[in-house]
């Protein structure tokens, strides 16, 4: 009480920001890891790049189920089936002809000024930020810029992570890459001839990259820009998911000027390249970036007039739509419909690696949002059984709210199907895995480790995505029983698991020779949470009298073992690129060609599963597609090549002064947000009162201790 008397009315002294920024329209966010590159051909998604760079389409902020709407495109293209002849073969192709909006300007950037393409070392001496170059310019966006983006995706030097998927579907991409490779060979041979014996391709091209004229080489390819405002791309076979890919920054427009600009040796020597800069048409521009410390984005003055989206009033008989509309209205997401955006002037991203300081600063009001800290804050949030969020009293007192997003995450235990003990496709072996599924109490895991914020996984598709339904058909019948009275799934009793285990050849967990069944769990994690998870896993296996052994190795060996298949179980997770069921099912489709990334450890080969895959991929969302997906899921659930674990709920916490927030990375953009800096200043002042009183008390205490000590000392001195 005495301390608070001292405390009223002081300015907070623990602010990590300069005093001059108080009360301004700035959004404060955190980044946890340093992104190695911002090149749109390489990154999947980045919360920084997504604000600066726009692509053809985007998900509508308010509509559910998620719907792609045009962003830079003028309107949604209608795919046309057409017979095309390509390289002598006749192909049943699908053509997407996308009209582009007119009058969109790029941000101001030195690359648009011709004279900046011939910089000398003197020009860049002492240059810390490319924007400090005196002359900048801009120009209108044209369709050719999209063409250039697609061409770059095929560049073997850039190593686009989704190249395989795109090349398999986009007509001409693989052939274009061959052209690029031939051109690179040719240029490298020329350089070698000139340089002589000391030629080394890597060190030569480090600061003098080979300049390829992508568009010239792309002549004759099926991806074209017939005129300035139309962009055309052709699929080899029906592939509706290409629309989702085209909403990602891979297809963001790349002006040839920026490539020429960053091809200059003087800039590359200063570590300035497309890896450290972004040029786009979005509502914000990169102002300064110090990756170990902070990144600052400022409002783009060239941004086109943009308005907060509206949600149409639903028909009264459409129950789901009515409920959704009401929910959106209650969350305040419809208040700003029609108003001009963006309203926030600046975004500051601070690097914050440690989770405790991140959380504390959020509580103190120095960060406006807090994402996905379920690991840390087990007790801060609670999800009641009705799925309504219930925050702890402390958070509620501070008017912090939680907003749930669409779960696009999938966590599972990967089982090596080639292993003699846990793998295999026979009914007996499937029973062993199914027994493990029943014994692993996901609900308990979600309760203990994720604070109730997660959905148990019945299959790879999370709830909310097409293909997964909230009813009896949506559950995993091999692991759950449907309780008709309560209308919800109930996990099968452990006795059933034990029966299955016995049928699999391990009655009471022991094999024929009486030895206990041992399963090895491979992990590289060393965090305390991981240790607790191992204990939890061990406890689940003990229910079946199976012994869990743990192989703890470093991350490199783990990846090697996964690839070579020398493990029994390990943990795995996946975050979807786009919200289509295909992006969750492709893992299991190994009978066809491999997918993207590192799922080669899967080794689940089932023709039964793979047969309807193409059909599933092509069908639009319809009852027919649902039936196909359900049958595929049944196959998976029967074979149980993995122990399906859970789908963590994607959520974010926001302070009261942040409006229109949604945590979905694919949808939420800062341009939709609105903040009230006055409320923020009030909150910060209230919750960051420095306790000078305590300091005074401490100093008094110190004096009380020290003074008699000094007196004793002086007396001692005088006596001797």
């Amino acid at each position, binding site marked *: 009480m005495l301390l608070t008397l001292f405390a009223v009315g002081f300015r907070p*002294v*623990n*602010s*990590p920001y*300069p005093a001059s920024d108080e009360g301004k329209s700035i959004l404060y966010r955190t980044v946890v890891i340093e992104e*190695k590159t911002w090149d749109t051909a390489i990154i*999947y998604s980045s919360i920084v790049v997504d604000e600066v760079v726009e692509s053809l389409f985007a998900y509508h902020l308010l509509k559910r189920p998620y719907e792609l709407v045009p962003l830079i495109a003028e309107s949604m293209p209608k795919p046309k089936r057409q017979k095309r002849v390509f390289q002598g073969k006749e192909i049943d192709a699908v053509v997407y002809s996308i009209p582009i909006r007119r009058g969109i300007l790029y941000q101001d950037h030195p690359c648009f000024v011709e004279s900046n393409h011939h910089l000398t070392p003197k020009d860049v001496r002492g240059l810390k930020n490319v924007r400090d170059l005196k002359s900048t310019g801009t120009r209108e966006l044209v369709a050719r810029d999209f063409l250039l983006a697609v061409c770059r995706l095929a560049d073997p030097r850039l*190593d686009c*992570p989704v190249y395989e998927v795109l090349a398999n579907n986009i007509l001409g991409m693989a052939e274009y890459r061959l052209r690029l490779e031939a051109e690179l060979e040719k240029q490298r041979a020329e350089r070698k001839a000139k340089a002589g014996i000391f030629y080394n391709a*890597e060190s030569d091209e480090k600061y003098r990259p080979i300049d390829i004229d992508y568009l010239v080489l792309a002549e004759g390819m099926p991806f074209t820009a017939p005129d300035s405002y139309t962009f055309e791309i052709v699929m080899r076979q029906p592939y509706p998911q290409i629309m989702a890919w085209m909403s990602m920054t891979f297809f963001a427009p790349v002006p040839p000027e920026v490539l020429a600009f960053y091809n200059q040796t003087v800039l590359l020597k200063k*570590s300035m390249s497309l890896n450290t800069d972004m040029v786009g048409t979005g509502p914000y521009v990169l102002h300064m970036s110090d*990756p*170990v*410390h902070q990144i600052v984005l400022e409002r783009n003055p060239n941004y086109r007039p943009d308005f907060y989206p509206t949600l149409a009033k639903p028909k009264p008989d459409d129950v789901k739509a009515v409920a959704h509309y009401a929910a959106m209205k209650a969350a305040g997401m419809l208040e700003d419909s029609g108003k001009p955006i963006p309203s926030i002037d600046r975004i500051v991203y*601070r*690097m*914050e690696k*440690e*989770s*405790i*300081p991140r959380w*504390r*600063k959020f509580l103190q009001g120095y960060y406006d949002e807090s994402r996905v800290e379920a*690991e*840390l*804050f087990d*007790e801060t949030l*609670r999800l009641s059984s009705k799925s309504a969020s219930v925050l*702890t009293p*402390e958070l509620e007192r501070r008017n912090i709210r939680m907003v749930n997003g669409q779960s696009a995450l999938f966590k599972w235990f990967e089982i090596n199907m080639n292993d003699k003990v846990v793998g295999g496709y026979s009914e007996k072996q499937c029973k062993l895995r199914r027994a493990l599924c029943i014994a692993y109490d996901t609900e308990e895991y979600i309760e*203990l480790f994720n604070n*109730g914020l997660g959905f148990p996984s019945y299959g790879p598709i999370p709830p909310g995505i097409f293909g997964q339904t909230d009813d009896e058909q949506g559950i995993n019948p091999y692991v759950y029983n449907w309780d008709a009275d309560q209308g919800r799934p109930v996990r099968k009793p452990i006795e059933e698991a034990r029966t299955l285990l016995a049928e699999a050849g391990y009655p009471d967990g*022991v094999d*024929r*020779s*009486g*030895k206990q069944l041992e399963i090895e769990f491979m992990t590289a994690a*060393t*965090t*305390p*949470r991981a*240790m*607790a998870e*191992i*204990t*939890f896993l061990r*406890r689940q296996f003990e229910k079946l009298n199976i012994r869990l052994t743990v192989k*703890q190795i470093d*991350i*490199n060996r783990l990846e090697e073992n996964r690839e070579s298949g020398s493990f029994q179980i390990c943990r795995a997770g996946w975050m979807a690129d786009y919200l289509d069921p295909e992006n969750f099912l492709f893992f299991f489709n190994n009978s066809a060609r491999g997918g993207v*990334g*590192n799922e080669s450890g899967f080794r689940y080969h089932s023709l039964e599963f793979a047969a309807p895959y193409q059909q599933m991929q092509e069908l639009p969302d319809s009852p027919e597609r649902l039936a196909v997906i359900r049958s595929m899921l049944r196959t998976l659930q029967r074979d149980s090549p993995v122990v399906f674990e859970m789908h963590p709920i994607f959520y974010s916490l926001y302070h009261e002064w942040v409006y229109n927030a949604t945590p979905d990375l694919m949808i939420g953009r800062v341009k939709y947000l609105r903040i009230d800096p006055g409320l923020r200043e009030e909150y910060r002042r209230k919750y*960051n009162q420095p*306790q000078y009183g305590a*300091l005074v008390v401490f100093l008094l205490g110190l004096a009380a201790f020290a003074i008699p*000590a000094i007196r*004793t*000392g002086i007396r*001692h*001195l005088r006596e001797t």
Partner: protein
Amino acid sequence: MGAYLIRRILYMIPIVLGVVMLTFALFFIVNSPADMARASLGQKATPESIARWVSAHDYDHPTWFNTQSKGLAKLTDTLLWKKCARLLIFDLGRSDSTEREIAAEIRHRMLPSLTMAVPTFVLGMLVNITLALIFALCRGTYFDRVGAVVCVLMMSISSLFYIIAGQFIFAGWLRLFPISGFDWGPGMLKYVFLPVIIGLISGIGAGIRYNRTLMLEEINTDYVRTARAKGLGEGRILFLHVLKNAMIPILTGAMTVIPTLFMGSLIMESFFAIPGMGSMTMNAIVAQDFAVIRSMTFIGSILFMIGLLLTDISYTLVDPRITLGNAESEREAVRPSIRDIGKFFLLFLVITVAGCGLVLGARALTAMETRFPIMDNLLLALTLLGLFVFFVRARRHEMWRNAWRQIRGKRLAMVALCVLSLFAVIAVLDSARWCDVRKVSVTLEDGTPGTNTIFSEPLSALDRILAPIARNTERTYSAPLSDRLYTKVNVPKVVNGKTIFVREHEPLVHPRSHLLGTDKMGKDVLYITLKSVRTALVVGGLTTLIAIPFAILFGCLAGFFGGWIDDVIQYVYSTLSSIPWILLVACLMMVFGTGLMQVCIAMGITGWVGLCRTLRGETLKIREREYVQAALSLGTSKFEIIRTHIVPNVMHLVLISVVLRFSRLVLAEAVLSYIGVGVGAGTYSWGMMINMARSELGKDPKVWWTLASSFAAMLMLVLSANLFGDALRDALDPRLRVRGGQN
């Protein structure tokens, strides 16, 4: 002076080369370029992209020797040359993980590191010297005695705990400082206040003790006694004579530290998010960025060498008795004969081979499935046997008997000894392990019935004693002596025939039986704490056991022979010292893998340096004594001299070092667990409890009992070890021993 400087600078070169080669070897034993690529590319790495990364970063060459190239290219077309040679012209290159120029980044990051390190150092020196002076002034008084105990107390608390508590109190609760972060510009200082204060407080204990010891040494010299006898006042003695002369070792010691200020503190910078050199090194270790690691060790070793050079120069400037170079040339090197060299080399081989053999044998034995796990019980038996032999032999020696009598008289030391014994008993109980046997009837392959003997998991004696609380697991957290869960969970309740889930604090399965509460998985915290005792004692004991033979061997050899043997040994330990300790241990752990034994080996290999230096100094002094000189002139074999004269006379130092370093090792294990290279899953340790506690403090409401238990247990052990070690040192220190057997 000039020639000496040049000689020293030239001497730096082979050391720096050695450091670079050692770092290179350590790194590439553990990692291959493909591993580095994978670490850099992350989850979406394919074999093609890995190959591309490796060739783009110029890593696709053989590591040491290229058999396919011609002539000189055999040596230069290797990773060793390509990656390390450029360092010698100070071209640090680019980071493998971030592509930024390393030199530019170092320049950028030096400022935050210095802003934090320099004030900590300067203020630390000021505070420590002032307080040590005050204590020296009041020596013998009640105030001094209490102060000594408080210093030991503060020294026994892990730095991790200071940081966690400091952040919590000053930034979280009192809100006087920002929790973490940094900003270039005029507001810079407010970010370093808290780390500086915490650094100050955590270093006060050890600093005051050290400075006070130096001052007391000075106070007990002849000229001070003369001055006092002549009637000079105590104050004038202190300020005029003692302080000035005590400052010599203080300042010269400080010289060694100054260059390392540039390297920043890894832990502090990580906790306080200060983007300095320390955090750069940490990030590089985690990201396996060899380019940065080699640059940092290169610079670190150069700075270390500069520090040593500054120390020597400052000695000359401050102490008129010492001139550069004369200290070495005056000492005549004892020339070893070939037989002697042979004998010592053989000894070294025996120790190393025995050590490796023990380790490999232990591995093999652990893998065998038997009723009594051989390795653990064998270790226990050997340790007990060793202690027994030591005690039996010590009873015969005058020195030990006197020491014991002296210690027995000090009440504090006896209490400490009792506490230590208690811990030792717990550890011993936890080391004796055996399996329960179960006979199962099975049908063999040929159809006949038979029995199979199944061994359960081996349980130690401690496990069996604590079985009641070990078995009582709950669902999750519960407070000490509580009857309900700490968190709210879904509890099924039957209402009107329907089962609904209600959110509440579920009552415990074993209410009020958990003295210190339960952890996240419901395990009794008292049980975990007691199980961690063995880990701590093994870490302290086994590490020292590994370090001692090497320290004694090398220390005595270097001190006794001088000359080229001294140079070689100094070279080896300078090289080892100049690599940042955490880096060295992290690399070694990656070679050995995680595990209790591996931690001990890694810390043992890196830990012998300090003791070696002390023993070298002591051997230098003993060598000049008359009886040693006599033995030398009589022609006794050098091996015999060292064995019978030198080694027994330095054993007291060894013992003191063992006891005092013990506490440091226990604290170091906590730090290793924090950065993730600790003892691993399946082994309980206080370091892991502290690690877990960090996240638990962030909860609301806070879970405090894990941190409290591990902190209290660690404090008790380390404090007792320090107090007992102090008493032991006082008892064994020949200067304090009264001659003639009187006491």
